[in-house]
């Protein structure tokens, strides 16, 4: 686990290109993280995706087991976060909820999945209540440390518990939404910097 100081870079003269370039760099970084995650490990037998993704087993908010097979045949947008995150997580989920409404009838085909990577605080029922906040069906999942380590590795998601003064902790985590097609194959990423318009283009590609 690496803990680095937050490093804020100033605005670039290539502001116009910052979003796309950053997205590209991000995709490359995540691809590498995914590749490293796969190297030397046994690939899941159920799916052999050409990128982030693959088999997983987690717990749904009603306590039942939820795997990638529950999403078979549906494109899905999956986001990893935690309910104590007051900022980037609600912003990302609210954005998905808002954009799903803009997809029209295709929006209903899309599954939105929220995976809490904070099993220490978030119990399945807590996550179930949390996702109701967004006014659209969202599948809230979590799992044991082992299960979460498996899925975050499969997706190349960075998660690090960071102790806070006073004994509590916060969680640094990848703030991108992974778009997966109906066959469970990686389609695209919605980054935190994507405008609604840019994210909508990616979602339309996914569901059409």
């Amino acid at each position: 686990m690496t803990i680095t100081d937050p490093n804020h870079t100033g605005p670039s003269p290539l502001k116009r290109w910052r979003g796309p370039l950053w997205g590209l760099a991000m995709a490359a970084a995540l691809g590498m993280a995914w590749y490293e995650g796969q190297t030397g490990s046994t690939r899941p037998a159920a799916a052999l995706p050409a990128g982030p993704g693959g088999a997983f087993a987690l717990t749904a908010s009603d306590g039942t087991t939820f795997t990638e097979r529950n999403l078979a045949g549906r494109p899905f947008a999956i986001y990893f976060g935690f309910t104590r995150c007051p900022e980037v997580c609600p912003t990302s989920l609210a954005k998905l909820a808002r954009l799903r409404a803009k997809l029209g009838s295709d929006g209903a085909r899309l599954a939105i999945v929220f995976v809490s990577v904070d099993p220490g605080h978030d119990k399945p029922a807590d996550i179930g209540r949390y996702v109701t906040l967004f006014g659209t069906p969202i599948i809230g999942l979590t799992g044991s440390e082992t299960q979460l380590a498996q899925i975050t590795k499969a997706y190349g998601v960075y998660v690090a518990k960071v102790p806070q003064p006073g004994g509590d902790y916060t969680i640094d985590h990848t703030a991108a939404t992974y778009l997966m097609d109906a066959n469970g194959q990686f389609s695209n990423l919605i980054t935190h910097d994507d405008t609604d318009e840019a994210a909508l283009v990616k979602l339309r590609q996914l569901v059409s």
Partner: protein
Amino acid sequence: MTRRILLAAACLPLATLAIAAPAHDYAPHRHSTKAIAISDGWARETAPGQVNGGGFLTITNASYQPDRLIGAASPNAAAVQLHTMTMDGGIMRMRQLVDGIPIPANGSVELKPGGMHIMFMGVRAPFRPGGQIKLSLRFAKAGRVDVTLPVRPVGAMGGMDMNHDHH
């Protein structure tokens, strides 16, 4: 009688210093809080069972001296902290600002989504849209400034619209 009028006159400008602040809160601080004004404050809706909530506001310092926001408290939460969020290579990192937030002389600081924010920890009840969250800010020089933050829906980003892109 004259003294009372003078006191009222002295307090009058102070009434504009904070959102929905009872005037008597300012009487003990009337010499020190003059420079700090809070605007555009709001808190984000939380889900039932959600432990933490975010608050956002703009602090304007009209003094020629810099100040520092050093702490906060709220009857609506067990604790209130000052936090910052940064995006670093696609990874979100949230940190407590243990040294507070410097407020430049004759300047302002925005606490807004995607950056610094007020973190309500252990909310007493879910923040529902339309609700009002009380917040006491503590400044190194200006002392205590009380504000009330209206609760906005979870998808709100601040300002008038949802998307704050300037290009």
